[in-house]
Protein backbone atom coordinates (compact mmCIF):
# COMPACT_ATOMS: atom_id res chain seq x y z
CA UNK A 1 0.00 0.00 0.00
CA UNK A 2 1.08 3.55 -0.71
CA UNK A 3 -0.12 6.11 1.79
CA UNK A 4 -1.21 9.65 0.98
CA UNK A 5 -1.85 12.14 3.75
CA UNK A 6 -5.36 13.63 3.72
CA UNK A 7 -3.75 17.06 4.17
CA UNK A 8 -2.07 16.61 0.76
CA UNK A 9 -5.49 16.03 -0.77
CA UNK A 10 -6.84 19.17 0.92
CA UNK A 11 -3.96 21.26 -0.46
CA UNK A 12 -4.25 19.80 -3.96
CA UNK A 13 -8.02 20.40 -4.11
CA UNK A 14 -7.69 23.97 -2.80
CA UNK A 15 -5.19 24.74 -5.55
CA UNK A 16 -7.29 22.95 -8.18
CA UNK A 17 -10.37 25.04 -7.29
CA UNK A 18 -8.45 28.30 -7.69
CA UNK A 19 -6.63 27.37 -10.89
CA UNK A 20 -9.67 25.91 -12.63
CA UNK A 21 -11.67 29.08 -11.89
CA UNK A 22 -9.20 31.31 -13.74
CA UNK A 23 -7.40 29.17 -16.33
CA UNK A 24 -9.42 27.62 -19.13
CA UNK A 25 -8.13 24.32 -20.59
CA UNK A 26 -6.15 24.84 -23.83
CA UNK A 27 -8.45 22.68 -25.94
CA UNK A 28 -11.48 24.83 -25.07
CA UNK A 29 -9.59 28.01 -25.84
CA UNK A 30 -8.41 26.57 -29.18
CA UNK A 31 -11.99 25.57 -29.98
CA UNK A 32 -13.23 29.13 -29.40
CA UNK A 33 -10.34 30.52 -31.43
CA UNK A 34 -11.25 28.23 -34.33
CA UNK A 35 -14.92 29.21 -34.03
CA UNK A 36 -14.02 32.89 -34.28
CA UNK A 37 -12.20 32.26 -37.56
CA UNK A 38 -15.33 30.64 -39.00
CA UNK A 39 -17.86 33.25 -37.86
CA UNK A 40 -19.13 35.72 -40.42
CA UNK A 41 -21.64 37.66 -38.29
CA UNK A 42 -20.28 40.81 -36.66
CA UNK A 43 -22.23 40.26 -33.42
CA UNK A 44 -21.06 36.65 -33.10
CA UNK A 45 -17.44 37.58 -33.83
CA UNK A 46 -17.65 40.39 -31.30
CA UNK A 47 -18.88 37.99 -28.59
CA UNK A 48 -16.22 35.35 -29.33
CA UNK A 49 -13.61 38.12 -29.29
CA UNK A 50 -14.80 39.22 -25.83
CA UNK A 51 -14.63 35.60 -24.63
CA UNK A 52 -11.03 35.26 -25.81
CA UNK A 53 -10.07 38.59 -24.26
CA UNK A 54 -11.61 37.46 -20.98
CA UNK A 55 -9.65 34.18 -21.07
CA UNK A 56 -6.37 36.13 -21.41
CA UNK A 57 -7.26 38.63 -18.71
CA UNK A 58 -8.49 36.04 -16.18
CA UNK A 59 -5.38 33.90 -16.57
CA UNK A 60 -3.00 36.85 -16.38
CA UNK A 61 -4.56 38.26 -13.21
CA UNK A 62 -5.63 34.98 -11.61
CA UNK A 63 -9.24 36.22 -11.55
CA UNK A 64 -12.29 33.98 -11.97
CA UNK A 65 -13.31 33.68 -15.64
CA UNK A 66 -16.97 33.72 -14.63
CA UNK A 67 -18.70 35.01 -11.50
CA UNK A 68 -20.49 31.67 -11.29
CA UNK A 69 -17.63 29.57 -9.98
CA UNK A 70 -20.06 26.71 -9.91
CA UNK A 71 -21.10 23.62 -8.03
CA UNK A 72 -17.92 21.74 -7.13
CA UNK A 73 -18.04 18.40 -8.96
CA UNK A 74 -15.27 15.82 -8.68
CA UNK A 75 -14.44 12.65 -10.56
CA UNK A 76 -12.04 10.70 -8.40
CA UNK A 77 -10.11 7.52 -9.25
CA UNK A 78 -8.76 5.89 -6.15
CA UNK A 79 -6.07 3.29 -6.80
CA UNK A 80 -6.61 0.04 -4.90
CA UNK A 81 -3.11 0.29 -3.45
CA UNK A 82 -3.65 3.78 -2.04
CA UNK A 83 -4.38 4.38 1.60
CA UNK A 84 -5.54 7.88 2.57
CA UNK A 85 -4.24 8.55 6.08
CA UNK A 86 -5.00 11.23 8.64
CA UNK A 87 -8.59 11.75 7.52
CA UNK A 88 -11.10 10.42 5.04
CA UNK A 89 -11.02 11.21 1.36
CA UNK A 90 -14.48 12.80 1.05
CA UNK A 91 -13.86 15.14 3.99
CA UNK A 92 -10.44 16.09 2.60
CA UNK A 93 -11.97 17.02 -0.76
CA UNK A 94 -14.71 19.05 0.96
CA UNK A 95 -12.11 20.83 3.08
CA UNK A 96 -10.14 21.69 -0.08
CA UNK A 97 -13.30 23.09 -1.66
CA UNK A 98 -14.01 25.24 1.39
CA UNK A 99 -10.45 26.58 1.54
CA UNK A 100 -10.30 27.15 -2.21
CA UNK A 101 -13.52 29.14 -2.19
CA UNK A 102 -12.66 31.18 0.89
CA UNK A 103 -8.94 31.79 0.25
CA UNK A 104 -9.40 32.09 -3.51
CA UNK A 105 -12.27 34.61 -3.30
CA UNK A 106 -14.60 32.37 -5.30
CA UNK A 107 -18.36 32.76 -5.07
CA UNK A 108 -20.21 30.64 -2.58
CA UNK A 109 -23.18 29.49 -4.61
CA UNK A 110 -24.65 26.65 -2.54
CA UNK A 111 -27.72 26.93 -0.28
CA UNK A 112 -28.10 24.39 2.53
CA UNK A 113 -31.68 23.39 1.67
CA UNK A 114 -33.13 23.32 -1.87
CA UNK A 115 -36.56 24.57 -0.73
CA UNK A 116 -35.75 26.70 2.29
CA UNK A 117 -33.11 28.74 0.50
CA UNK A 118 -32.27 31.13 3.33
CA UNK A 119 -28.96 29.59 4.41
CA UNK A 120 -25.85 29.61 2.24
CA UNK A 121 -23.35 26.92 3.28
CA UNK A 122 -20.75 29.69 3.27
CA UNK A 123 -17.90 27.77 1.65
CA UNK A 124 -19.43 26.18 -1.46
CA UNK A 125 -19.58 22.76 0.21
CA UNK A 126 -20.74 20.08 -0.05
CA UNK A 127 -19.08 18.97 -3.28
CA UNK A 128 -20.50 16.26 -5.51
CA UNK A 129 -17.95 13.44 -5.58
CA UNK A 130 -18.02 10.53 -8.03
CA UNK A 131 -15.60 7.94 -6.69
CA UNK A 132 -14.29 5.12 -8.80
CA UNK A 133 -11.94 2.38 -7.66
CA UNK A 134 -9.05 1.74 -10.02
CA UNK A 135 -5.97 -0.46 -10.20
CA UNK A 136 -2.61 1.01 -9.15
CA UNK A 137 -1.20 3.24 -6.43
CA UNK A 138 -2.32 6.67 -7.63
CA UNK A 139 -5.11 9.00 -6.65
CA UNK A 140 -6.51 10.98 -9.62
CA UNK A 141 -8.78 13.94 -8.92
CA UNK A 142 -10.62 15.72 -11.72
CA UNK A 143 -12.41 18.91 -10.75
CA UNK A 144 -15.19 20.25 -12.96
CA UNK A 145 -16.99 23.26 -11.44
CA UNK A 146 -20.46 23.48 -12.97
CA UNK A 147 -22.30 26.75 -13.53
CA UNK A 148 -26.02 26.94 -12.76
CA UNK A 149 -27.10 28.62 -15.99
CA UNK A 150 -26.03 25.78 -18.25
CA UNK A 151 -26.95 23.05 -15.76
CA UNK A 152 -30.54 24.40 -15.72
CA UNK A 153 -30.84 23.76 -19.46
CA UNK A 154 -30.04 20.04 -19.18
CA UNK A 155 -32.64 17.38 -19.90
CA UNK A 156 -33.33 13.68 -19.58
CA UNK A 157 -35.85 11.56 -21.49
CA UNK A 158 -36.86 7.98 -20.83
CA UNK A 159 -37.40 7.11 -24.49
CA UNK A 160 -38.93 3.91 -25.82
CA UNK A 161 -36.60 1.05 -26.72
CA UNK A 162 -38.24 0.95 -30.15
CA UNK A 163 -37.49 4.65 -30.80
CA UNK A 164 -35.10 5.15 -33.69
CA UNK A 165 -31.60 6.62 -33.54
CA UNK A 166 -33.08 9.56 -35.47
CA UNK A 167 -35.62 10.17 -32.69
CA UNK A 168 -32.79 10.19 -30.16
CA UNK A 169 -30.87 12.68 -32.30
CA UNK A 170 -33.97 14.89 -32.58
CA UNK A 171 -34.37 14.93 -28.80
CA UNK A 172 -30.76 16.04 -28.39
CA UNK A 173 -31.03 18.79 -31.03
CA UNK A 174 -34.39 19.96 -29.60
CA UNK A 175 -32.83 20.19 -26.13
CA UNK A 176 -30.17 22.54 -27.49
CA UNK A 177 -32.74 24.57 -29.42
CA UNK A 178 -34.97 24.91 -26.37
CA UNK A 179 -31.99 26.04 -24.31
CA UNK A 180 -31.30 28.76 -26.92
CA UNK A 181 -29.11 31.56 -25.61
CA UNK A 182 -29.56 30.65 -21.94
CA UNK A 183 -26.68 28.21 -21.28
CA UNK A 184 -24.05 30.67 -22.65
CA UNK A 185 -23.41 29.19 -26.11
CA UNK A 186 -21.18 28.14 -27.74
CA UNK A 187 -21.93 25.17 -25.51
CA UNK A 188 -20.42 21.76 -25.10
CA UNK A 189 -23.18 19.15 -25.26
CA UNK A 190 -22.64 16.07 -23.11
CA UNK A 191 -24.92 13.17 -23.97
CA UNK A 192 -25.55 9.93 -22.10
CA UNK A 193 -27.42 7.13 -23.84
CA UNK A 194 -28.41 3.90 -22.09
CA UNK A 195 -27.90 2.54 -18.58
CA UNK A 196 -30.36 3.43 -15.84
CA UNK A 197 -31.87 6.87 -15.14
CA UNK A 198 -28.99 8.03 -12.94
CA UNK A 199 -26.23 6.26 -14.89
CA UNK A 200 -27.39 7.99 -18.05
CA UNK A 201 -27.27 11.45 -16.41
CA UNK A 202 -23.84 10.61 -15.00
CA UNK A 203 -22.55 9.68 -18.46
CA UNK A 204 -23.83 12.98 -19.90
CA UNK A 205 -21.94 14.86 -17.19
CA UNK A 206 -18.79 12.78 -17.60
CA UNK A 207 -18.86 13.30 -21.37
CA UNK A 208 -18.24 17.01 -20.75
CA UNK A 209 -14.72 16.16 -19.58
CA UNK A 210 -13.61 14.93 -22.99
CA UNK A 211 -11.08 16.94 -24.94
CA UNK A 212 -12.39 19.21 -27.69
CA UNK A 213 -11.74 17.45 -30.99
CA UNK A 214 -11.85 13.93 -29.53
CA UNK A 215 -14.37 11.43 -30.94
CA UNK A 216 -16.23 8.48 -29.49
CA UNK A 217 -14.20 5.30 -30.10
CA UNK A 218 -17.09 3.70 -31.93
CA UNK A 219 -17.40 4.75 -35.55
CA UNK A 220 -21.19 4.61 -35.23
CA UNK A 221 -21.36 7.05 -32.30
CA UNK A 222 -18.54 9.19 -33.66
CA UNK A 223 -20.63 9.71 -36.80
CA UNK A 224 -23.66 10.66 -34.68
CA UNK A 225 -21.55 13.15 -32.72
CA UNK A 226 -20.42 14.84 -35.91
CA UNK A 227 -23.88 14.83 -37.45
CA UNK A 228 -25.38 16.35 -34.28
CA UNK A 229 -22.70 19.03 -34.10
CA UNK A 230 -23.42 20.03 -37.70
CA UNK A 231 -27.20 20.10 -37.10
CA UNK A 232 -26.83 22.14 -33.90
CA UNK A 233 -24.57 24.67 -35.58
CA UNK A 234 -27.00 24.95 -38.46
CA UNK A 235 -29.72 26.21 -36.10
CA UNK A 236 -28.12 29.65 -36.18
CA UNK A 237 -28.66 30.14 -32.41
CA UNK A 238 -25.07 31.36 -32.25
CA UNK A 239 -22.90 32.76 -29.44
CA UNK A 240 -25.12 33.88 -26.51
CA UNK A 241 -28.17 33.11 -28.71
CA UNK A 242 -27.67 36.28 -30.74
CA UNK A 243 -27.16 34.49 -34.05
CA UNK A 244 -24.16 32.94 -35.76
CA UNK A 245 -22.55 29.72 -36.89
CA UNK A 246 -21.21 28.61 -33.52
CA UNK A 247 -23.87 27.22 -31.21
CA UNK A 248 -21.82 24.27 -29.94
CA UNK A 249 -18.10 23.60 -29.80
CA UNK A 250 -18.65 19.85 -29.40
CA UNK A 251 -21.16 17.06 -28.93
CA UNK A 252 -19.78 14.19 -26.84
CA UNK A 253 -21.74 10.96 -26.52
CA UNK A 254 -21.11 8.26 -23.92
CA UNK A 255 -23.13 5.04 -24.00
CA UNK A 256 -23.90 2.15 -21.67
CA UNK A 257 -25.70 -1.20 -22.06
CA UNK A 258 -29.42 -0.90 -21.58
CA UNK A 259 -32.42 -2.77 -20.14
CA UNK A 260 -34.67 -4.33 -22.82
CA UNK A 261 -37.50 -2.03 -21.69
CA UNK A 262 -35.51 1.20 -21.56
CA UNK A 263 -33.75 3.88 -23.58
CA UNK A 264 -32.72 6.76 -21.33
CA UNK A 265 -31.13 9.76 -23.04
CA UNK A 266 -29.60 12.62 -21.04
CA UNK A 267 -28.29 15.93 -22.30
CA UNK A 268 -26.00 17.91 -19.99
CA UNK A 269 -25.01 21.35 -21.23
CA UNK A 270 -21.79 23.13 -20.45
CA UNK A 271 -21.22 26.80 -21.17
CA UNK A 272 -18.28 27.99 -23.29
CA UNK A 273 -16.46 28.60 -20.02
CA UNK A 274 -15.89 24.84 -19.69
CA UNK A 275 -13.58 24.75 -16.71
CA UNK A 276 -11.90 21.61 -15.44
CA UNK A 277 -8.60 20.54 -14.02
CA UNK A 278 -6.81 17.37 -12.93
CA UNK A 279 -4.27 16.41 -10.32
CA UNK A 280 -2.64 13.02 -9.76
CA UNK A 281 -1.21 12.23 -6.33
Amino acid sequence: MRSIQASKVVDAVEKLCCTAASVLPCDVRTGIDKALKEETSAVASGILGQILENIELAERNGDPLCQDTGFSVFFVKLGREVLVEGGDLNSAIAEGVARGHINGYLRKSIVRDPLDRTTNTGDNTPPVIWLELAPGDRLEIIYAPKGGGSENMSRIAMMKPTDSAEAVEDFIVDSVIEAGGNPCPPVIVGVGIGGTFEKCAFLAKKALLREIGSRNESGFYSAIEQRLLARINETGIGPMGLGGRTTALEVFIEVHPCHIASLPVAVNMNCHCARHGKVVL
Partner: protein
Amino acid sequence: MMEPIKLTTPVSREFACSLEAGTPVSIDGELLALRDRAHSCLIEILRAGERPPFELDGALILYASPTPAKPGKIIGSIGPTTSLRMDPFTPELLAAGVRGTIGKGPRGGSVVEAMIEHGAVYLAVTGGIAALLAKKVISCKTVAFEQLGPEAALRLEVRDFPAIVAQDCRGGNLYKMDHKSINKPQED
Protein backbone atom coordinates in the same frame (compact mmCIF):
# COMPACT_ATOMS: atom_id res chain seq x y z
CA MET B 1 -19.82 45.83 -35.66
CA MET B 2 -21.13 49.41 -35.53
CA GLU B 3 -19.82 51.87 -32.92
CA PRO B 4 -21.67 51.49 -29.62
CA ILE B 5 -24.14 54.19 -28.56
CA LYS B 6 -23.36 55.78 -25.19
CA LEU B 7 -26.04 55.02 -22.62
CA THR B 8 -26.01 57.00 -19.37
CA THR B 9 -28.17 56.54 -16.28
CA PRO B 10 -30.80 57.38 -15.23
CA VAL B 11 -32.39 56.48 -18.57
CA SER B 12 -35.39 58.42 -19.88
CA ARG B 13 -38.35 56.69 -21.48
CA GLU B 14 -37.64 58.63 -24.65
CA PHE B 15 -34.04 57.45 -24.83
CA ALA B 16 -34.93 53.83 -24.01
CA CYS B 17 -37.49 53.89 -26.81
CA SER B 18 -34.96 55.24 -29.30
CA LEU B 19 -32.85 52.07 -28.95
CA GLU B 20 -33.31 49.37 -31.55
CA ALA B 21 -32.56 45.65 -31.25
CA GLY B 22 -29.09 44.94 -32.61
CA THR B 23 -27.56 48.25 -31.49
CA PRO B 24 -24.42 47.89 -29.36
CA VAL B 25 -24.34 50.19 -26.32
CA SER B 26 -21.69 51.28 -23.85
CA ILE B 27 -23.07 52.12 -20.41
CA ASP B 28 -21.81 54.88 -18.10
CA GLY B 29 -23.47 55.37 -14.73
CA GLU B 30 -25.22 53.24 -12.13
CA LEU B 31 -26.53 49.72 -12.36
CA LEU B 32 -28.51 47.88 -9.70
CA ALA B 33 -27.19 44.31 -9.47
CA LEU B 34 -30.09 42.11 -8.39
CA ARG B 35 -30.79 38.43 -8.88
CA ASP B 36 -33.40 35.86 -7.91
CA ARG B 37 -33.98 36.35 -4.20
CA ALA B 38 -33.34 40.10 -4.25
CA HIS B 39 -36.20 40.26 -6.76
CA SER B 40 -38.52 38.36 -4.39
CA CYS B 41 -37.61 40.76 -1.57
CA LEU B 42 -38.08 43.87 -3.72
CA ILE B 43 -41.45 42.72 -5.07
CA GLU B 44 -42.64 42.06 -1.52
CA ILE B 45 -41.77 45.65 -0.58
CA LEU B 46 -43.54 47.07 -3.65
CA ARG B 47 -46.66 44.96 -3.08
CA ALA B 48 -46.81 46.13 0.54
CA GLY B 49 -46.89 49.70 -0.79
CA GLU B 50 -43.61 50.50 0.92
CA ARG B 51 -40.77 52.61 -0.43
CA PRO B 52 -38.05 50.53 -2.16
CA PRO B 53 -34.55 50.78 -0.62
CA PHE B 54 -33.15 52.32 -3.83
CA GLU B 55 -34.41 54.52 -6.63
CA LEU B 56 -36.17 52.61 -9.40
CA ASP B 57 -37.18 55.51 -11.63
CA GLY B 58 -35.00 55.43 -14.76
CA ALA B 59 -32.90 52.62 -13.29
CA LEU B 60 -31.14 49.79 -15.08
CA ILE B 61 -31.09 46.39 -13.38
CA LEU B 62 -28.23 43.99 -14.07
CA TYR B 63 -28.94 40.34 -13.23
CA ALA B 64 -25.71 39.46 -11.51
CA SER B 65 -23.84 38.64 -8.34
CA PRO B 66 -20.05 38.85 -8.35
CA THR B 67 -17.32 36.78 -6.78
CA PRO B 68 -15.97 38.39 -3.57
CA ALA B 69 -13.51 41.24 -4.12
CA LYS B 70 -9.88 40.42 -3.43
CA PRO B 71 -8.21 42.77 -0.90
CA GLY B 72 -7.69 46.21 -2.40
CA LYS B 73 -10.01 45.54 -5.35
CA ILE B 74 -13.34 47.22 -6.09
CA ILE B 75 -15.16 44.04 -7.04
CA GLY B 76 -14.53 40.40 -7.96
CA SER B 77 -15.50 38.94 -11.33
CA ILE B 78 -19.01 39.89 -12.42
CA GLY B 79 -21.24 38.95 -15.32
CA PRO B 80 -24.87 38.35 -16.22
CA THR B 81 -27.01 35.45 -15.08
CA THR B 82 -29.96 33.97 -17.02
CA SER B 83 -32.68 36.61 -17.36
CA LEU B 84 -35.67 34.31 -17.82
CA ARG B 85 -35.65 33.43 -14.12
CA MET B 86 -36.46 37.09 -13.41
CA ASP B 87 -39.35 37.18 -15.92
CA PRO B 88 -42.10 36.73 -13.30
CA PHE B 89 -40.93 39.87 -11.46
CA THR B 90 -39.99 42.14 -14.34
CA PRO B 91 -43.39 43.59 -15.43
CA GLU B 92 -44.02 44.97 -11.92
CA LEU B 93 -40.55 46.52 -11.80
CA LEU B 94 -40.98 48.14 -15.20
CA ALA B 95 -44.33 49.52 -13.98
CA ALA B 96 -42.45 50.96 -10.99
CA GLY B 97 -40.15 52.94 -13.29
CA VAL B 98 -37.26 50.60 -14.09
CA ARG B 99 -36.19 51.60 -17.61
CA GLY B 100 -34.12 48.64 -18.61
CA THR B 101 -32.89 45.21 -17.62
CA ILE B 102 -29.56 43.59 -18.44
CA GLY B 103 -28.76 39.90 -18.52
CA LYS B 104 -28.32 36.94 -20.81
CA GLY B 105 -30.84 34.96 -22.84
CA PRO B 106 -34.23 36.00 -24.20
CA ARG B 107 -37.23 37.42 -22.29
CA GLY B 108 -40.70 35.90 -22.33
CA GLY B 109 -43.99 37.28 -23.60
CA SER B 110 -45.17 39.03 -20.43
CA VAL B 111 -41.88 40.94 -20.22
CA VAL B 112 -42.06 41.90 -23.89
CA GLU B 113 -45.59 43.27 -23.38
CA ALA B 114 -44.51 45.22 -20.30
CA MET B 115 -41.49 46.63 -22.17
CA ILE B 116 -43.79 47.91 -24.91
CA GLU B 117 -46.31 49.30 -22.40
CA HIS B 118 -43.79 51.08 -20.16
CA GLY B 119 -41.13 51.98 -22.74
CA ALA B 120 -38.25 49.87 -21.49
CA VAL B 121 -35.32 48.09 -23.08
CA TYR B 122 -33.60 44.74 -22.58
CA LEU B 123 -29.84 44.60 -23.02
CA ALA B 124 -27.80 41.42 -23.44
CA VAL B 125 -24.31 41.06 -22.05
CA THR B 126 -21.96 38.22 -22.92
CA GLY B 127 -21.95 35.57 -20.19
CA GLY B 128 -18.72 34.08 -18.91
CA ILE B 129 -16.57 37.18 -19.46
CA ALA B 130 -16.67 38.26 -15.84
CA ALA B 131 -12.98 39.12 -15.44
CA LEU B 132 -13.32 41.52 -18.35
CA LEU B 133 -16.58 43.12 -17.15
CA ALA B 134 -15.15 43.66 -13.67
CA LYS B 135 -12.71 46.12 -15.24
CA LYS B 136 -15.68 48.29 -16.23
CA VAL B 137 -16.85 48.66 -12.63
CA ILE B 138 -15.52 51.74 -10.83
CA SER B 139 -17.43 51.37 -7.56
CA CYS B 140 -19.57 48.78 -5.82
CA LYS B 141 -21.76 49.14 -2.71
CA THR B 142 -24.28 46.87 -1.03
CA VAL B 143 -27.56 48.82 -0.91
CA ALA B 144 -30.08 46.30 0.44
CA PHE B 145 -30.84 42.69 1.39
CA GLU B 146 -27.41 42.13 2.91
CA GLN B 147 -28.80 39.00 4.60
CA LEU B 148 -28.90 37.29 1.20
CA GLY B 149 -25.10 37.00 1.16
CA PRO B 150 -23.98 36.52 -2.46
CA GLU B 151 -27.47 37.59 -3.58
CA ALA B 152 -27.48 40.98 -1.81
CA ALA B 153 -28.53 44.03 -3.86
CA LEU B 154 -25.55 46.06 -5.11
CA ARG B 155 -25.21 49.47 -6.67
CA LEU B 156 -22.45 49.46 -9.28
CA GLU B 157 -20.95 52.45 -10.96
CA VAL B 158 -19.73 51.43 -14.41
CA ARG B 159 -17.85 53.00 -17.27
CA ASP B 160 -17.88 51.69 -20.86
CA PHE B 161 -19.87 48.62 -19.80
CA PRO B 162 -20.50 46.73 -23.07
CA ALA B 163 -23.97 45.44 -23.97
CA ILE B 164 -26.21 45.05 -26.98
CA VAL B 165 -29.90 45.92 -27.36
CA ALA B 166 -31.41 42.43 -27.59
CA GLN B 167 -35.12 43.28 -27.26
CA ASP B 168 -36.49 46.77 -27.77
CA CYS B 169 -39.68 48.54 -26.73
CA ARG B 170 -41.31 48.02 -30.13
CA GLY B 171 -41.03 44.24 -29.95
CA GLY B 172 -37.80 44.13 -31.96
CA ASN B 173 -35.85 41.00 -31.04
CA LEU B 174 -32.28 40.00 -31.85
CA TYR B 175 -32.82 36.44 -30.63
CA LYS B 176 -33.71 34.06 -33.39
CA MET B 177 -36.54 32.30 -31.63
CA ASP B 178 -37.95 29.98 -34.24
CA HIS B 179 -35.10 27.50 -34.58
CA LYS B 180 -37.28 24.47 -35.21
CA SER B 181 -38.38 25.81 -38.54
CA ILE B 182 -34.93 27.11 -39.42
CA ASN B 183 -32.89 24.05 -38.58
CA LYS B 184 -30.83 24.66 -41.67
CA PRO B 185 -27.95 27.01 -42.57
CA GLN B 186 -28.72 30.64 -41.80
CA GLU B 187 -27.84 33.79 -43.64
CA ASP B 188 -25.66 35.88 -41.38
